[in-house]
């Protein structure tokens, strides 16, 4: 009988490891400052914190590419299984940089919004918004860096408590109802996840992902635990049919918040699912489950897109599009199959999936911000009332259109590269049915994007009523995000080496460069 106790974590803190602590700590310090310094400095503190956060994200990226191995920090010097480790590999760094860019852009967009006035007494909406924006950035960083399943539980709760109040920032009954529904789904997800964590501990005596990878066995306990955790996280990721909370919540939030919720927050719980399936489950154990996840993903693509086409309001259309685009992420599970020679993360489907995640984040953030500007300009977001709107605020609609191009998968765009790689993977793996879904999803996306764009750019029959001016700065932020979605389409159409850093035993999952156990 072998001892069931996991081996001690075989790596030490790496030289740049402290950056990982800072990535989580700095936003929290920002929150504490906002709540003690008073409203005069709220925006200044928040934007400075976001800028420092972006610098830290870049520093982690530099450190990772410089050493070519994972960045690790043992918190308090305690080694797992007793202590907690933070760990950044290529995948986590991509997400951290993505988060820093999108939240930073949203911060620039939101400056001066919510009636913020440094000289007036503290107001509810701006104080709460900036606090929660910082909270989300810290919580997402923790999700991307945490290596301990319970630490990740705390992280997903942090995300819940920051995301839910953002939904009902306007204080209306309608959005509060959406927020409550979101909260109940999220809490259901949390308890299911925690139950899985308990079972994992009962089997292996550790919650550290790197250690679990080496001790996890193909057995009922592991399957039940991972199944419970996955279902819980699916409720938070809003994969069909657990998506029903998402449209009202994402469409009801203020535009700046919707952008963060749709672009990033749902990706946080998805990231944990990825880690469970590819970093803990033994590769031979994923077959049927992977097909089921992708099957739900395919239904999400078709269902979400069709409902999106039927929407009367722009923000709801964009929200249903999120339901569809999340579906693509789950095609990774059966397509990114590993083998002895090439691990899963070295497959084109893996790179395609992560490209989909990133390009959707940029495109969706751009589109939600554009929808917010439409609201500013015309006082409503009814699609039927937007004929000719593109001639009044062309930059906004160019941003919307470029984002939409990425969703459709037209070249050149990140969405194109992502879908092209996944299409090739499904042909290469002999699973042609996913290819059919990808193509069909692209056509449907074209349907809902052009439904908005074509009348908006056409010469209107009657002059459209303009309610107020639109800030040029905000238009440019939306455009910049849309251009990012475009630019990442220029990565080579092959497995990205960055995503391989720090993954797999030979790439240094357990033995980082120069620090043998």
């Amino acid at each position, binding site marked *: 009988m072998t001892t069931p106790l996991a081996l001690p974590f075989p790596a030490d803190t790496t030289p740049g490891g402290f950056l990982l602590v800072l990535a989580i700590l700095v936003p929290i310090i920002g929150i504490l400052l906002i709540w003690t310094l008073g409203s005069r400095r709220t925006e200044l503190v928040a934007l400075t914190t976001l800028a420092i956060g972006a610098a830290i994200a870049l520093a982690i990226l530099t450190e990772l590419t410089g050493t070519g191995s994972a960045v690790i920090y043992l918190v308090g010097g305690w080694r797992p299984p007793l202590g907690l480790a933070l760990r950044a590999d290529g995948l986590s760094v991509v997400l951290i940089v993505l988060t820093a860019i999108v939240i930073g852009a949203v911060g620039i967009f939101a400056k001066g919004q919510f009636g913020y006035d440094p000289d007036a007494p503290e107001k*509810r909406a701006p104080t709460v918004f900036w606090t929660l924006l910082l909270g989300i950035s810290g919580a997402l960083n923790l999700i991307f860096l945490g290596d301990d399943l319970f630490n990740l539980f705390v992280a997903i709760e942090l995300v819940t408590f920051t995301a839910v109040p953002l939904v009902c920032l306007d204080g209306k009954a309608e959005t509060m109802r959406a927020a409550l529904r979101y909260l109940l789904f999220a809490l259901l997800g949390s308890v299911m996840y925690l139950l899985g964590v308990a079972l994992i501990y009962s089997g292996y005596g550790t919650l550290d992902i790197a250690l679990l990878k080496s001790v996890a066995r193909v057995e009922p306990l592991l399957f039940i635990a991972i199944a419970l955790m996955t279902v819980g996280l699916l409720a938070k990721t809003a994969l069909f049919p657990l998506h029903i909370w998402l449209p009202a919540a994402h469409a009801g939030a203020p535009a700046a918040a919707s952008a963060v919720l749709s672009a990033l927050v749902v990706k946080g719980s998805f990231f944990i699912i990825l880690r469970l399936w590819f970093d803990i489950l033994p590769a031979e154990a994923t077959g049927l489950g992977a097909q089921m996840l992708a099957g739900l993903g395919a239904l999400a693509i078709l269902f979400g897109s069709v409902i999106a086409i039927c929407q009367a309001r722009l923000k709801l259309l964009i929200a249903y599009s999120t339901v569809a685009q999340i579906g693509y992420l789950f095609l990774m599970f059966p397509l990114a199959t590993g083998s002895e020679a090439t691990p899963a993360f070295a497959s084109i489907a893996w790179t395609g999936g992560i490209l989909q995640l990133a390009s959707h984040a940029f495109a969706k953030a751009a589109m939600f911000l554009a929808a917010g500007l439409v609201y500013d300009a015309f006082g409503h977001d009814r699609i039927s009332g937007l004929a000719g709107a593109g001639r009044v605020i062309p930059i906004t609609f160019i941003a919307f259109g470029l984002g939409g191009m990425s969703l459709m998968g037209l070249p050149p765009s990140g969405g194109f590269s992502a879908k092209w790689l996944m299409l090739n993977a499904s042909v290469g793996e002999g699973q042609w049915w996913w290819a059919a879904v990808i193509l069909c999803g692209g056509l449907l996306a074209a349907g809902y994007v052009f439904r908005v764009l074509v009348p908006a750019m056409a010469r209107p029959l009657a002059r459209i009523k303009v309610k107020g001016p639109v800030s040029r700065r905000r238009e440019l932020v939306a455009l910049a995000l849309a251009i990012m979605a475009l630019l990442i389409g220029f990565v080579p159409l092959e497995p990205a080496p960055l995503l391989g850093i720090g993954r797999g035993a030979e790439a240094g999952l357990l033995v980082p460069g120069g620090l043998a156990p």
Partner: protein
Amino acid sequence: MTETAFFDTLLVVTMIGLAIWMIVVRDVFAAIIGFMAFGLLLSLVWLRIEAPDVGLTEIAVGGGATGVMLLRARGLASAGDAMNAVPSVPFRVLVGVLAGAVALFLGALVVFPPAVAPTLAPLAAEHLASTGVGNPITAVLMAYRAFDTFLETVVVLLALIGVWSLTPDGAWGARPRVASADVPAPLLLLAQWLVPLGIVIGIYITWVGADEPGGKFQGATILAAMWMLVMMAGLRSAPALSSRRLRIALVVGPAIFIAIGVSGFHFAGAFLAYPDGLAKPLILAIEAGLLISIAAMLGMLLAGPPLEGDRP
């Protein structure tokens, strides 16, 4: 059947019965009272499975504070504001089967555990001396996994900010109204006599938590409950959201935690590491700060957001 086995079985049957009753009973108030009774029984269970620290937390937070919180919403929620329509029969059956399946799988895993139960107890014991505390749970919460504990206080703070975010715009910065219009005499008496005692107990529980069952979460909940009692009896009004003293009380714990954690980079070689020999005093310093902050957070969570402005 031995006496203890009889007691255990009775406890389990009662709890499951209460749980089912809570789900089926029509009256929300009855369900909430049932939940509070359930919380009391659950804390007994924690004693039976040798987890007195958890039992204390359960009785203070899980049953007590949560019950009070639910009671606050009871009257308002009775009007109904149904989240979903009454589900169809096939859906009920489906959910019943799924929930049953989860319970069944769990039960099977409980009855057929791994041959050797993995445990970190020996490892926790081995390093206990270096943390300077005698209670291994405090060592886990304040040393081995101190990062979790730090983040947890941030979770509670953000939950409070979330609760406050629901303040109507005109009431931002105002005092939550806790006291009822006419305070019943027994409540007043209770507040005057119990509160000093409760404060002493709360601080004591935190203080002994280093070596005996107890700790800041349990202590802070008792302090928060006493504070609530004082506010309900109208002896003191709740602080305004904009109050600087309240804001400082809320952040002092996390701030001390960060300060000591960050100084660990320099003095002990890692974030949240303690220099040799200084572990216990530093842990006590953090716990003192956390006691204040968590008591303030829990108290304000119980008080809820202000619903009307008191500023001109």
